[in-house]
């Protein structure tokens, strides 16, 4: 056995020595180097220098007067507990010239000990402009405490003068938006040469600074992904590894990349899914933690926004938090904290793997980031394993399933807490198993039926619309069973079991929702901000001659309910037509992964170049070639198309009911909802009119992986620009 492996290895090495493979590997290496260098050179410098500031005092009516070589400015300031200070922005007056010399800033704590410092070349200061002074290290305040910012100067000559703008009298507290900052402004004292000045420096805190971490992280990923592509080439095009094994490898690498690309809580609706998985983990680990409706208890240190989408969940500073917190341990002896959350539907099975990940992380004492990433990784592993089994079982168009499983959208969902990963994986497996039974197996026994039934039962309660895809089991010919009656009984049993389980969970869900206080789409009027003294004109909109009452968020109270649709048929048709024309491209992007992240909140649109190329590869992977030349008969293809259309129609109907009556296009419809039935649609269009006259499966699979990677890289550049 060992000898045989050795011989195989030798044979592969001989193959690898062929000039075309060496050239290809060199090409991959060069291509990766160019692409990663191009992206890094273009985007990293900009984001590494990015910072966020909080305005503390925006009153700059007077200046302090020139700061001479022996002079000193001492500004007392306070920080809130847990707040980070990377530096300060000060409004500088250089008296209309470019000064020479050095400016020294020192940050002292309340005991006079040096905490951080910054020395700046004065020639870099611009007159009447805020300058960012970054300290050599950031300060993280444990609690509200005073600090002293001491400013001294070493001007090159007496003509090199510098002063700072300050308020005239008590500072005006100011913050962006309406909220006042919770700084103790009485502690802001300004001393110039030891004498108190009635005012405060025009001051901004630099509370976030990206810094150099992104270079390290990016380089690490660039190296790993280059190695991945090189090894993938060898595995696919030299060794000829089995598709399902290659799938696991690709899915795990690209999935982990996606986990870092889209940080925790930034995937679609992930905040709700995290809350759900966390609450399930509480049931196992902390049954005494009281769980009530839209509130959960979390460990101290796991505080995060889980009620709504958090815009800070993505971007360079989210990457920074991810980078810094990945290997942090959870704080010990921290008291549990109660969080207001929005939880997801009650069907718990799709959350099993993420919940296990969370449980494991809590048992290992991982910090918040580690916990979230382990929960995601567990979901990814489940997805990779189940879809790889589907790829293995798929009797035709296996490459199509391989490519579909590695679409950037699938990877994003798999590398998150989303239950859709579970749904997609099981749907793919169900399709593969049905086709396997229909096309490959000589007979279908109870074991196969039980397996199909189990998958259908697990899948059915996930989303009701996918129930419509389960009749795929009917494609198995009666001849594969022991008799016609057995065939009908077997197939009927699979469908009946799915229906019964779905019914049971739906009833449970309805009962559960009756108790929950956060499961309705909109809170009742008392919370919705309607004025108690009657509506104002701004609460109404006239749409197509119809007066509609609006909610404070601009949506009409009236939705496209079945009754409304029946009485407004032309309007409904117009909405559907407009949606198809205007949003069709968005649905396609959403299906393939051309738009990542929470699409309603942020726009991370991948370049169409990659999306179209990916679509082309997916379509090509669907076509028959010399080794995979079986095409389903027309009637069966029509059946598959019918199932796909039924699911699509059900999704449209569901979105329609969800759409406020003053909308021009459908609300909430996303292309990713069609992912579970994507293989059905593709198999339906797999005809005999087009085919490859050479083996194309492996090159197409490799191309799909490269394109998925390029999509992720392009999305990365878009996220950096957020």
């Amino acid at each position, binding site marked *: 056995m060992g000898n045989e492996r050795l011989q195989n290895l030798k044979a592969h090495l001989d193959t690898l020595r062929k000039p075309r493979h060496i050239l290809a590997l060199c090409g991959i290496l060069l291509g990766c180097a160019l692409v990663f260098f191009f992206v890094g050179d273009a985007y990293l410098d900009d984001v590494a220098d990015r910072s966020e500031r909080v305005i503390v005092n925006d009153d700059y009516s007077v200046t302090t007067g020139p700061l001479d070589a022996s002079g000193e400015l001492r500004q007392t300031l306070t920080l809130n507990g847990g707040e980070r200070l990377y530096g300060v922005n000060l409004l500088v007056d250089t008296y209309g010239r470019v000064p020479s010399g050095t400016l020294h800033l020192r940050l002292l704590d309340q005991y006079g000990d040096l905490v951080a410092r910054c020395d700046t070349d004065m020639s870099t200061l611009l007159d009447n402009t805020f300058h960012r002074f970054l300290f050599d290290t950031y300060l993280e305040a444990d609690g509200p405490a005073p600090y002293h910012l001491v400013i001294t100067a070493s001007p090159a000559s007496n003509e090199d003068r510098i002063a700072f703008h300050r308020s005239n009298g008590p500072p005006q507290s100011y913050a962006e938006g309406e909220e006042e900052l919770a700084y103790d402004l009485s502690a802001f004292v300004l001393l110039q040469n030891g004498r108190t000045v009635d005012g405060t420096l025009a001051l901004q805190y630099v509370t976030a600074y990206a810094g150099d971490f992104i270079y390290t992280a990016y380089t690490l990923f660039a190296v790993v992904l280059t190695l991945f592509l090189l090894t993938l080439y060898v595995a696919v095009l030299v060794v000829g590894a089995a598709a399902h094994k290659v799938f696991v490898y690709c899915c795990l690498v690209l999935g982990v990349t996606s986990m870092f690309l889209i940080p925790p809580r930034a995937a679609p609706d992930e905040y709700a899914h995290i809350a759900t998985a966390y609450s399930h983990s509480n049931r196992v680990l902390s049954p005494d933690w009281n769980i009530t409706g839209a509130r959960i208890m979390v460990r101290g240190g796991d505080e995060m926004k889980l009620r709504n989408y958090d815009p800070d969940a993505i971007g360079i500073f989210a990457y920074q938090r991810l980078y810094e917190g990945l290997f942090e341990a959870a704080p010990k002896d921290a008291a549990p904290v109660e969080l207001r959350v929005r939880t997801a539907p009650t069907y718990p099975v799709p959350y099993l793997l993420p919940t296990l990940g969370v449980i494991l992380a809590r048992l290992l004492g991982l910090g918040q980031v580690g916990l979230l990433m382990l929960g995601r990784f567990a979901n990814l592993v489940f997805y990779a394993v189940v879809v790889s089994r589907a790829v293995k079982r798929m009797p035709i168009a296996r490459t199509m399933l391989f490519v579909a499983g590695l679409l950037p959208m699938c990877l994003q969902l798999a590398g998150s807490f989303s239950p859709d990963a579970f749904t997609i994986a099981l749907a793919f497996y169900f399709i593969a198993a049905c086709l396997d039974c229909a096309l490959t197996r000589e007979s279908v026994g109870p074991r196969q039926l039980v397996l199909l039934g189990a998958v259908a039962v697990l899948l059915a309660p996930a989303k009701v619309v996918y129930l419509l895809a389960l009749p795929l089991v009917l494609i198995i010919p009666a001849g594969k069973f022991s008799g016609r009656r057995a065939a009908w009984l077997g197939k009927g049993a699979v469908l009946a079991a799915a229906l019964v389980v779905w019914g049971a969970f739906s009833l449970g869900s309805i009962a559960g929702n009756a108790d929950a206080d956060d499961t309705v789409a909109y809170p009742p009027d008392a919370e919705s901000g309607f004025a108690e003294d009657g*509506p104002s004109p701004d609460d109404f909109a006239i749409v197509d001659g119809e*007066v509609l009452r609006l909610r404070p968020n601009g949506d009409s109270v009236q939705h496209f309910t079945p009754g409304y649709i029946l009485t407004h048929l032309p309007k409904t048709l117009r909405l559907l037509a407009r949606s*198809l024309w205007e949003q069709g491209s968005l649905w396609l992007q959403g299906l393939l992964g051309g738009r990542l992240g929470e699409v309603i909140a942020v726009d991370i649109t991948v370049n169409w170049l990659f999306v*179209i190329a990916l679509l082309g590869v997916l379509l090509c992977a669907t076509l028959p070639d010399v080794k995979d030349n079986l095409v389903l008969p027309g009637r069966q293809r029509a059946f598959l198309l019918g199932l796909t259309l039924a699911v699509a129609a059900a999704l449209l109907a569901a979105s329609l009911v969800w759409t406020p009556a003053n909308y021009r296009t459908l609300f909430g419809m996303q292309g990713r909802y069609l992912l579970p039935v994507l293989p059905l649609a593709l198999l339906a269009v797999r005809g005999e009119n087009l085919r490859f006259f050479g083996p194309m499966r492996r090159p197409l699979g490799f191309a799909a992986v490269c394109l998925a990677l390029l999509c992720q890289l392009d999305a990365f550049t878009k996220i950096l620009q957020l």
Partner: protein
Amino acid sequence: MQFVRRHRRYLVTAAIFVMCLLIFYAFWHLEVAEARGKSRSLYLNDTQQNATATLEAGGVLSQTFTTDEAFHALGVVPLYDGAIDGALFVALYDDATGEALARVEGNAAHTRSGQYAAFVLPTAVQTAQGRYRVDFSAQLTPESAPLALAKSDDAPAGWQLLENGAGAGGALCLQAGVDRIGGFLTRFYWVFALLCAVFLAGLYLLFSFGVGITGLFAVAAAGLCLLFNLILPPYAAPDEAFHINEAFELSFELTGENIDDGSWHTATRRAEDHNEIIQNRFTTVFTYRELAQNLFSAAGDSTPTLYREDMVGGYRLPYLPAALAITVCRWLGLGFVPTLYAGRLVNMALYVLAAVFAVKRAPVGKGIFAAVALLPMALHLGASFSRDCLTIAGYLLFTALCLYYIKEKPRLTGRDLLILAVFIALLAPAKLIYAPVLLLVLFIPHEKFSWRGKAIPRKAVWGIKAALAVLAFATLAPDLWRRLMRLVRSFSAQSAAAAVGVSTAATPNPDSITYTTADFFRRPGTILWLVVRTFFAEFTFYLESLVGGHLGYFSLPLSWVFTLACLVLLALATLPEPGGESPLLTRRQRAFGGLSTLAVAAMLVGGCILWTPAHYTTIYGIQGRYLLPVLPLALCSLSGLGKGLVKTRPMTRGIILGFAGVGTFALLNAFLLILQN
């Protein structure tokens, strides 16, 4: 059943006809019907100031005003604080005679405070004197907020405002709805719908009768070009205003009546060749009406007149056919609109003829030539005054002819050589960037050259080919010399890229600092980075502007469905036909095709970089449509590459049918977008 089988083609044709009309009916009902009320807004008094006129319960606000135009709606600006409910009444009188003209009631709750609320009159109103009085009154519910109407402090001459019979200063803010499109839209839309239905059904009937590729293509191209002319009228195509001016100018030069001063900022047309509604590059439904009303108009004042309007300049031969048509129209005394259409139709006819001949002559890749010619963008340009019309047509035909000589025709006669020489002489100066395609003649095998039935010696053939190349170079020489001089000058000038980052305080318009030719050598990294960034940032736009996802003056962004459909059809057309050659071209020919495409793209990008202001982050001015002339050669080079994705049954005729459908419904989409203008 036998009847169905026997008459299947007629039944399917009828079904297509009915389906097409049903689709048009659906869009009529959903989008078009309500646009019949579309009108232009005429602000009679729009000086909205702080003053208001209060409309008390039982009170009347009377405003006298003047207007010469017929109007069918009157708008005022209601002002209120809080919720309003009740009825508003408008009574319109002829101020000269006191005759009641109209009475209208409106729902106050349907108004928005501070915005014009229009009261639609039962019929359009116009009096001899043009003096009117309008009385506003209201019956509001007790819970309703009090209502006032916005007014100006000063009144236009002859206007008077009365509050409950007493004089009040100022005048109400009034808006009139004039020029309602009304029934014209209905007629226009259904003519368009009927033409589309007849066209698609007829084309299918021809398809079902087995009409060949060339015949089917000819009908499809001609039909679509006519439909494009209908929906995207003169002045709608990119830069068409400049091309029209150029054609008119040339026409006047031909007859020696040109009064131009030689500047390309002025153009000569007849005094009557002026119409603001038609000369709007953003087509509206009013453009259609204006064109329809003047379709058979006769010329009024034919005096040559100088207009301060830009022309294109440069190579003018592509304008000659349109200019000749304009000249004939002038002789015949036809008006502006028929003259415009005559010019367009001549261009269109030449485009269709050239494309049909190209498809007929192409020995391989007929589908490719047909597909490129039927792309909505190609049709849009083909049915316009644009000089790209004849450039695209010329290169389509030239490429097809060359392939015919290379692959099919056994012997080249003197006439063939003359044809090639003429093509080269005409096409080379059209646009420098396409010149590499002309070198395709070099691939005609030596043994095919003959003179009076005898083969020409090899050296002589080289001489002929060299002569053709010299001919191309000679026609390009002035342009090349100009560019060379520019390069030399740019080396002595300050590099624009180097200037970036320097304060622009001394430069009033930063757009005037553009990249120079020298920057290509001095800062290749900057230029490369600019190209890469542009490619990734603008790829979607290039694709859409190549196939026609954006029509008009980029003002009509069609649905993504059409771009995708065009790409799929183009890809299908590129695949080799079953039983046909695969790949279509030899390795060297493919290499040439690829290299010439890259050369065209490189020159296009390079040219646009020279237009690009140095502070831009992407290249300015590139459009996908510029690649249309080289597209057939590029696709022929790509066809049959790789592991052989092939069609297992002939599809070219189906592809033509597909393009007819895509083009027709793309026009419907364009029309729906125009409705919103």
